[in-house]
């Protein structure tokens, strides 16, 4: 089944742009000791990512209703966020207040949530035929 749809790819591209902007903003704010502003930035980033996922996810469902209870979009978000965070630190772009450990802790705790989502995705899959929800196939 085609799991990587063009709406997922578009979401991925938007997410890369948002995440790069977030990391750059976060590092700059921390370097400038603007600690309280980082909360606002993080919230803004979270809302923007959620909205993007919502919009592209809805379009994706209209185009081809893969029954994955949002798992593909969640997985894409995890991979892109973690990859950019790792590269950001390996390239030395982080501020003195950021460290790789916090990235890894985020990866582990988020990964546990992602694993749980995967379990639900597999359970939901029992109600599907070839990746489509039984009740969505025929109209």
């Amino acid at each position, binding site marked *: *089944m085609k799991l990587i749809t063009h709406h997922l790819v578009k979401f991925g591209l938007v997410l890369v742009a948002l995440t790069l902007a977030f990391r750059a903003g976060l590092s700059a704010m921390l370097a400038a000791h603007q600690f309280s502003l980082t909360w606002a930035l993080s919230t803004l980033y979270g809302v923007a990512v959620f909205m993007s996922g919502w919009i592209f996810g809805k379009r994706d469902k209209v*185009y*081809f209703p893969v029954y994955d209870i949002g798992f593909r979009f969640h997985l894409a978000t995890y991979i892109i966020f973690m990859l950019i965070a790792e590269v950001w630190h390996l390239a030395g772009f982080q501020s003195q207040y950021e460290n790789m450990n916090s990235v890894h802790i985020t990866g582990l705790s988020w990964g546990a949530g992602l694993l749980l989502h995967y379990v639900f995705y597999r359970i939901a899959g029992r109600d599907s*035929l*070839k*990746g*489509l929800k039984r009740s969505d*196939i*025929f*109209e």
Partner: protein
Amino acid sequence: MSEKDKQFYELLAAWEETYKKGQLTLWIFLALKDGKKYVDEIKAFVEDASNQSMTCEEQSLYRNLRKYQHIGVVDYERGKGNKGPERKYFFLTALGRELLDHFVSRNINLFFNQKVKDLLKTEEPL
């Protein structure tokens, strides 16, 4: 229109709305059993054959055809368009034909037994 008639037609519309849900697949399959067609032709077939009681948007047809192709009941081949780009001509696969035949024999043919046919004979409509 009297209040009684208005209520009657509201009830009829509500029933028809529910009744038509789930019928699009059957009409699309019938269109493709009739022969290979591109989307505009499927749309025209469905609307004509159903006496305009079924209408379908192109986008909805494409969405359904993508799903049917994915589950292996419909496929397409590219053919010449009318002075434009190539078109996708959809057709029922062997599995699609078998599925349609079974569906019809289990759910549609029962309307053709004499007892049901007699019951379906309409009296004078309002």
